[in-house]
């Protein structure tokens, strides 16, 4: 396929470029970058006036559910959702069945990903930090890194034992791979279904207090001070005080990073009043003050990454009593729209900073090679329309599951295409 991209704004935090440039792409390789480029009729010309060309976006927190829970999502449907959402790479979490705690499972996931959706989405496994995600014994980290794991996490469950967390940080530090903590002291959150506070008191639903998250982040940072060579990443940070802890630790120079989900910077626990189980996720939606603090932390760089925690569940699993419903919502296909609407439009982030948090920063944290946008390089690109307004319709999702609280919401900004590994996908 031969493409001429005309008039797009190239935003490339790796090279620092932010300017209108044309691009000629032949069979997945960037042939030429320049102004006023033209090409003959054998090229498909794409008019990108008012649109953005960025390095391929990566979502470093996704549940692909395969192997084991293919009724919720498969690697194929998950990758299709990622591509539709503008991502050329995802990291998949290890809470599958079997758990990704063995190199054979990690290899299976990687190989399977290459065979679906023309391999347009790179899938990087996050392996379990402990065997079976049981929190008792370290997983074979060296072997897992050898099989392509880019991080370690027992996501969904916290690593509760301080001893095991210490060993995980020490062992993983030999390979320069981060330990990603689902920061939740489960002795404090046990049985809760939503944020503990005024709304949970009104609704009579047992709460998950913010202190469950803050205490775990504090504990881990104390461990990290003791093991400064390790790298620690807080998944889906949700509480204002947890963000404060990360900010202070960064000022100290610790190797700590963190991510936030679009739903945590968009919604508050007030939406739980509907008892819609698509408002149930872990960590839970917090208060307005927390949302404000998350936005401030995005602005000042304390939060490095936007990641979705894409967590597919079927309608039958979700359409039950609130307290019985599983945690989590899908996010791949609404991430760009929510980020532009809630962050760029509200002057929290520039588009340039948004692309750092959706592409360059997560790749750096995971030690993935930076995407080079230069002549002769393979095209790993996302094409975004930051101006289009659109209404979320879960029925149009490529994801197998439709559990989103954003159905019917008007968002701003949407992916219009992705290119990776010699392939191109453009939306209609």
């Amino acid at each position, binding site marked *: 396929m031969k493409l001429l991209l005309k008039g797009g704004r190239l935003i490339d935090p790796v090279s620092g470029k932010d300017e209108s440039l044309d691009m000629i792409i032949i069979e997945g390789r960037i042939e030429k970058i320049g102004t006023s480029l033209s090409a003959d009729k054998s090229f498909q010309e794409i008019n990108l006036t008012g649109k953005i060309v960025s390095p391929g976006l990566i979502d470093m927190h996704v549940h692909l559910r395969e192997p084991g829970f293919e009724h919720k999502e498969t690697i194929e449907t998950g990758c299709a959702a990622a591509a539709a959402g503008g991502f050329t790479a995802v990291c998949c979490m290890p809470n599958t069945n079997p758990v990704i705690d063995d190199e054979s499972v990690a290899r299976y996931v990687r190989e399977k990903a290459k065979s679906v959706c023309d391999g347009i989405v790179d899938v990087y496994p996050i392996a379990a930090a402990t065997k079976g995600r049981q929190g008792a014994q370290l997983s074979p980290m060296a072997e897992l890194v050898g099989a392509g794991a880019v991080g370690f996490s027992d996501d969904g469950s916290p690593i509760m034992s301080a001893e095991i967390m210490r060993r995980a940080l020490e062992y993983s530090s030999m390979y320069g791979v981060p330990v990603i903590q689902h920061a939740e002291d489960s002795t404090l959150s046990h049985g809760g279904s939503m944020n*503990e*506070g*005024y709304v*949970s*008191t*009104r*609704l*009579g*639903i*047992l*709460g998950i*207090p913010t202190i469950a998250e803050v205490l775990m982040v504090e504990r881990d940072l104390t461990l990290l001070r003791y093991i400064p060579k390790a790298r620690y990443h807080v998944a889906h940070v949700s509480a204002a005080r947890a963000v404060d802890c990360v900010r202070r630790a960064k000022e100290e120079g610790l190797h700590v990073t963190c991510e936030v989900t679009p739903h945590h910077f968009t919604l508050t626990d007030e939406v739980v009043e509907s*008892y819609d189980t698509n408002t149930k996720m872990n960590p839970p939606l917090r208060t307005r003050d927390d949302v404000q603090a998350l936005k401030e932390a995005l602005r000042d760089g304390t939060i490095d990454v936007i990641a979705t925690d894409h967590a597919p569940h079927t309608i*039958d699993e979700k*359409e*039950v*009593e*609130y*307290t*019985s419903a599983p945690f989590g919502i899908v996010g791949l296909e609404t991430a760009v729209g929510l980020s532009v609407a809630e962050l760029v439009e509200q002057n929290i982030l520039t588009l340039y900073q948004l692309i750092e948090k959706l592409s360059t920063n997560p790749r750096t944290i995971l030690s993935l090679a930076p995407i080079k946008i230069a002549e002769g390089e393979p095209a790993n690109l996302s094409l975004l329309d930051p101006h289009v307004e659109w209404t979320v319709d879960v029925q149009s999702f490529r994801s197998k599951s439709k559990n989103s609280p954003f159905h019917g919401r008007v968002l701003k900004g949407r992916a219009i295409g992705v290119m990776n590994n010699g392939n191109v996908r453009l939306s209609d």
Partner: protein
Amino acid sequence: MKLQSRHLLGLDGMSKEDIQLILDTAVSFKEVLDRPIKKVPPLQGKTIANMFFESSTRTRLSFELAERRLSADVVSFTTAGSSVSKGETLKDTARNIEAMKVDMVVIRHSAAGAAHFLSRVVQANVLNAGDGSHEHPTQALLDMFTLREKRGSLEGLHVCIVGDVTHSRVARSNIFGLITMGAKVSVCGPATLIPRDVEKLGVSVYHRLEDVLPKVDVLNVLRIQLERQERGLFPSLREYHRYFGVTKEKMALATKPVTIMHPGPINRDVEISADLADSEHSVILQQVTNGVAIRMAALYLLGTTN
């Protein structure tokens, strides 16, 4: 006169006019209950299903009596012996019952929001007979009805709810309803059983009965459940009784005549001493009688205004 909603899910957000309407309607139904023939025809031809996913004798009997006295056809089930124990979901159970052309559903369930959930998936009118720790609106309505009978008006009355507020649907519904009706509401209990930010509901918080007793007109004493002790939320029943149990000795601190209520069933000599429960201060049995009248009123208003 009509209610603003076709369901009775809770008192949170219910208007003063609607609460007033139910209380006023219950007055005439209470009069029916004193007649030799206690049956009236307004719900003739209507079918009501009582779905009790949680065991309850008193509330279920009270609803069934109210339904029969309004001449409705009544079907009831409790979880034991129903297909729910075989893994059928709440949604499927509800839809099956509805497929049998039921007009109204009364639901008791251990999950907060179960009645709201049901009201979204079925066409029938839904009455919440208690959903987890969330609401128990007919209990609060009958409490308010009883207080209005006993004290004339709710306006300005100081009602203190004593005990495990965190896990109590009776407490929540009473707080919402009483505040809407202009009463002053406080809660008193161990700090571990008072929910976070409860002050934002407009109530004041006490941890010593001695501090609040001189100020109250009414004590609504909640049942304490032993499983809360097992979960470490209070140390022992003995200590609970000593510091939070309502007794004759503590009542000596009251400066006004105090009405004592309890939603039942009572743990005698735990949250309330036996002599007080049976004393002239207590309206516990009137509450039970009024429960039938209030449920008749709620069923009548929802069942005849479709």
